[in-house]
């Protein structure tokens, strides 16, 4: 593996042992997180820092740039560019909602064994994805964020939904064949949009636009450019 460009000494907060991790987060969560942790360049196992994450944070992920500084090809990135999203933000190709204990809930890509709305450890992709943390500004978000996460985890309507591969692909052509009908399927950023809208209420105008608009999409790049969110870099610990 080449140089690990998006992680360096500046964002590694030191060493952490497995025992310390299980004292900080629950034992099952630590087991799940470490179980999927893979080695990165230099033989290190880097674990995202739970200290820099708060419940309700949105975590965007994307492939790190190549060593020549160019972006790797990704279909979602191309779709976002065609949608006219900010080019610098188009590198963020997936959005997840942080629920605590190094786990996220997401509408997962269909390349995984279990697709649709799932709970997953953040460490699953941390060896080959760069992360950006988005935190909604304002005190009312602090009051609502646990309700947003509760809705994402517990809603009997959201949980059974599959990944909306049709919607994600259709965004490339700026044409959603069945309007805004995602009653049984939803893709990552629109899953987060719905959670923020219903339990916020946040991102209200965006929800109206997607629901009422013929061919409107809400993509990870739309979150990345939204100035209602603070942008925070991901920090890491090296697992002993």
């Amino acid at each position: 593996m080449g140089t690990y460009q998006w992680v360096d000494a500046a964002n590694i907060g030191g060493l952490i042992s497995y025992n310390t991790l299980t004292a900080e987060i629950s034992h099952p969560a630590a087991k799940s997180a470490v179980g999927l942790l893979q080695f990165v360049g230099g033989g290190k196992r880097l674990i995202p820092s739970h200290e820099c994450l708060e419940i309700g944070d949105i975590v965007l992920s994307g492939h790190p740039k190549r060593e020549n500084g160019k972006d790797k090809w990704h279909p979602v990135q191309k779709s976002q560019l065609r949608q006219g999203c900010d080019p610098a933000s188009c590198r963020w190709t997936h959005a997840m909602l942080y629920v605590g204990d190094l786990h996220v809930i997401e509408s997962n890509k269909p390349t995984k064994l279990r697709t649709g709305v799932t709970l997953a450890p953040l460490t699953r992709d941390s060896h080959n994805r760069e992360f950006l943390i988005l935190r909604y500004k304002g005190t009312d978000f602090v009051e609502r964020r646990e309700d947003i996460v509760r809705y994402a985890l517990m809603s009997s309507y959201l949980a059974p939904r599959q990944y909306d591969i049709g919607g994600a692909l259709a965004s490339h052509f700026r044409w959603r064949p069945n309007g805004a009908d995602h009653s049984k399927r939803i893709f990552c950023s629109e899953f987060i949009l719905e959670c923020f809208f219903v339990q916020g209420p946040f991102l209200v105008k965006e929800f109206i636009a997607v629901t009422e608009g013929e061919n409107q999409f809400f993509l990870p790049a739309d979150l990345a450019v939204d100035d209602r969110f603070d942008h925070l870099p991901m920090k890491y610990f090296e697992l002993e």
Partner: protein
Amino acid sequence: MKQVPFAGTIRTITRDGRSGVVALDADVQAAVGKAFAVISPDTRGRIALMNGTGQLKAGVHVEGTAVDGSEALRALSVKAG
């Protein structure tokens, strides 16, 4: 948190029919400085509005109480009116 009365017309509903956007009446907008209120599954009185269909219906005029949010009001209770 201070509660405020609101009134308006249901404009958009989620696909499950349990949540929706209320476009506030002009006088309410002027009073509260927001254009929308949001009905969520936590809003009391929502079931009665579904009329046995399990779905809120766009175009119905409603009123209720809400708390202010940064982007819209969050409805605490709602009824037809």
